[in-house]
């Protein structure tokens, strides 16, 4: 038995609250794959989006502090939430680029904003050679016949110079992951269109429209479900789906899964263990119909 692969784990606020099922499913999948996810001690909120729109320094300093905490662990860092991931890589880029920021950060916190490990989003985690090999081995219930639209959103791929992840206009990494689970990824043109993000609070009708466009494009392309990696994308696509369907008089009925939930299903985990009952748009009916749950 080889020692478990260890990663530092940054859940961020959403995974402790509104996106609890993302956290649950990530941890469950990690266990099933023999990965040890070790939560960064005393982490701070990444600041998205309120910090960086009010005070640029605070916007970088909050995630930089988490990086400083993680740096003591000597491990690569996994951040499932796309927004957290985006803020962490942005903070690291800022520290590398602006000595003034580093000085001010050191004065404010007494710590160096240094992190020499890699910062991974979940797609990257599953693409790690050792993890991908184990995953391939342990898929018990291939998601055969399940047509899933991979929705990347804005933050996983942008800004490309900072994230350096996949093609910013036509990413394919999640498509590849879904294939490895036995599902059929559905190519659609709205993979990286904005869902409206936090405007859901201040301008609800706008988000209903934007989320509706993404869902309609996925459905038109033949998808039966959507896969996401961002709690806010999930909130908008899952939670506003009924309003979006009503606004255009066009039924949608597309379950929106965190990609970790789909990995868990393929690994043979029970839907309850993945938090699938917590969705607003029914996530279980389709699975039963496909005999996947």
């Amino acid at each position, binding site marked *: 038995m080889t020692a478990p692969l260890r990663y530092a784990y940054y859940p961020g606020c959403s995974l402790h609250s509104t996106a609890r099922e993302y956290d649950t499913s990530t941890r469950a999948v990690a266990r099933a794959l023999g990965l040890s996810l070790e939560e960064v001690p005393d982490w701070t909120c990444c600041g998205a989006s309120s910090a960086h729109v009010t005070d640029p320094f605070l916007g970088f300093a909050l995630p930089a502090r988490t990086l400083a905490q993680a740096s003591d662990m000597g491990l690569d860092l996994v951040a499932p939430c796309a927004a957290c991931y985006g803020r962490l890589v942005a903070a690291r880029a800022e520290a590398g680029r602006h000595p003034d920021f580093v000085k001010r950060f050191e004065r404010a916190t007494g710590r160096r904003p240094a992190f020499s490990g890699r910062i991974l989003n979940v797609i990257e985690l599953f693409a790690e050679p050792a993890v991908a090999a184990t995953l391939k081995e342990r898929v018990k219930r291939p998601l055969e016949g399940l047509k899933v639209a991979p929705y990347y959103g804005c933050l996983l791929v942008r800004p490309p110079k900072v994230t350096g992840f996949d*093609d*910013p*206009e*036509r990413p394919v990494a999640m498509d590849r992951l879904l294939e490895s689970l036995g599902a059929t990824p559905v190519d659609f*043109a*709205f993979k990286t*269109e904005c869902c409206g993000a936090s405007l859901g609070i201040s301008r609800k009708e706008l988000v209903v429209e934007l989320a509706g466009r993404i869902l309609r*494009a996925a459905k*038109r392309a033949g998808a039966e479900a959507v896969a996401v990696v961002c709690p806010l994308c999930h909130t908008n696509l899952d939670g506003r789906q009924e309003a979006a369907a009503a606004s255009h008089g066009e039924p949608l009925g597309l379950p929106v899964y965190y990609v970790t939930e789909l990995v868990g299903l393929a690994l043979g985990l029970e839907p309850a263990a993945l938090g699938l009952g917590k969705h607003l748009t029914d996530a279980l009916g389709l699975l039963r119909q496909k005999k996947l749950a």
Partner: protein
Amino acid sequence: MKRVGVFLCWCGSNIAGTVDVGKVAAEVRKLPGVVHVEENKYTCSEPGQASIIKAIKEHRLERVVVASCSPRLHEPTFRRAVESAGLNPYYFEMANIREQCSWIHPDKETATAKAFDLVRMAVAKALRNEALSRGTITIEKKALVIGGGIAGIQAALDIADAGQKVVLVEREPSIGGRMSQLDKTFPTLDCSQCILTPKMVEAAKHPNITLYTWSEVEKVEGYIGNFTVTIRKKARGVDETLCTGCGVCQTKCPTKVPSEFEAGMGTRKAIYTPFPQAVPNKPVIDRANCTYYKTGKCRVCERFCEAKAIRLDQEDTLVTERVGAIVMATGFDLFDVSRYGEYGYGVYPDVITSLQYERLVNASGPTEGKVKRPSDHEIPKSVAFILCVGSRDEQKGTTYCSRACCMYSIKHAMQYRDKVKDGRAFVFYMDIRTPGKAYEEFYKRAAVDYGVEFIRGRPAKVYQVGDKLVVKAEDTLLGRQVEVEVDMVVLAPAMTPRRDAAKVAQVLSVSYDGYGFLNEAHPKLRPVETNTAGIFLAGACQGPKDIPDTVAQASAAAAKVVALLAKDQMETEPMVARVNEALCSGCLWCKPVCPYKAIDAKTVTEKVHGKVVSRQVATVNAGLCHGCGACTVACRDGAMNLSGFTNEQLLASVDELLGWVRPACSAD
């Protein structure tokens, strides 16, 4: 000590406005060796030059310093003046107190102090200047033109018409280049092939032009007036002297591959001429795709060739030509538009490039001039033309404007409206740039007479809905987002240098910019010359260009070549590197740093303690040397020295500036 005269120029207020020339003159008078100082409002003027000549005679001057502008401008003027007064022209020295002083410093006091520093450095150097004499080289009366597009054809014809021999080398099976792929040309809408093919035929028939197609320049050695060029004639697989161009081999050949000439919109055979009007009208065999070369079987072309011209065992041959001048006319490639993932080129079949569209509207193209979209061969009822795909985009493409795309895209939209009366044409642009004769009028006609719809905004995305494509953009004039549903999208790619431009430039020692476009010697005053003497530029290898500009530049390059070849011999600059063989250790560190490949090894035989020994030393080919001085810096032994800029002269300048007095014994 030599008697030095110093002439300080005001250059009107260019210098005198910032430098107190009178004060500098007063200081310069105190310098050792200076026997005469004079101020002139314009030293370069005829009275200014006359005053130099007069002073040389009256004051028996042995060295002359002029403090004025950059030596790039007036050094030759003053050298001539000095020479006409009976002095060796290389006794002259110039201090640049304009570009390097008055123009760049706002403060008069510091500028004046700096001007004095520059002048006394020049005086210190002038005192050590030596008499140099120019050599002569003979000129081979023949030119090489690389590239048989419109630029190369025009340059070759102009040189040939002036009575000089030309070798025209084209790497494709036919001459004609990009222009032969185009349908109509803006702003007159005349047929591209119709105006090009007469020139192609003339180039092939001209008694002064030797044409090598399906050939590449492999090696260039030598220098201005005396280049030796090695040309690889790729095996055609066809005996050109026997082939009648009947075309039966192409009809019978069983292998179809996408045609480069049709930009992938049509097919060709493995044995092919790229297009019907090809010059020469002799096919080549594409060995990478030919069944015979892959499996050893087939030989259908051979069987059907009545002239018995097929030569499947033909091999490449190397030809050597000696030429006096070279014109680079290597043309351009197109930016790979699939790098814009958001536009879906390569994903959506009805997103095509402008060059593909040219083939679609071309009467001899794959659709015989009918605008049919690739996916279902239906006539599109609406087309969007997207400009600047790769141009003017620091994020993903190039920073420059490709100059021709606005005009040809407007032309495309007009042609579409002409052919599809009920169709709508949308042009998405950032700016419409029409800086040519009758160009703006052409644009107006498109908008007013042809009803082309212009939308200012760079599209964010193209996506498919059913069998339609939706172009999403911000209309920056309306200040709102628009989504336009069309049947086909045409992307205007940036013009880029040939993929192997940098390699070719290195073969010829021509400098190139960050993108790989070849550099002209001066952006305004020497636009068709390169920094390598005897090599000239024509067309888009120097930067994006449309046809009128390309032809103008080609004729300009030809004029330069003709002027050079009209002479039997030419003078060479004596300011070249020379080797002190006694000091040279033969390490040849100087060889790799020489950008002009002017340095080689040679063996010298000498007597040491009564024994005859041979050893290696460096030698400089004065014809190739440009006097850049790189070798003198690399030389560890101090054996390499640059005439006119010797170590002694430069150190004297520096010592003067720093106020050092160098002990006589270390002045090596």
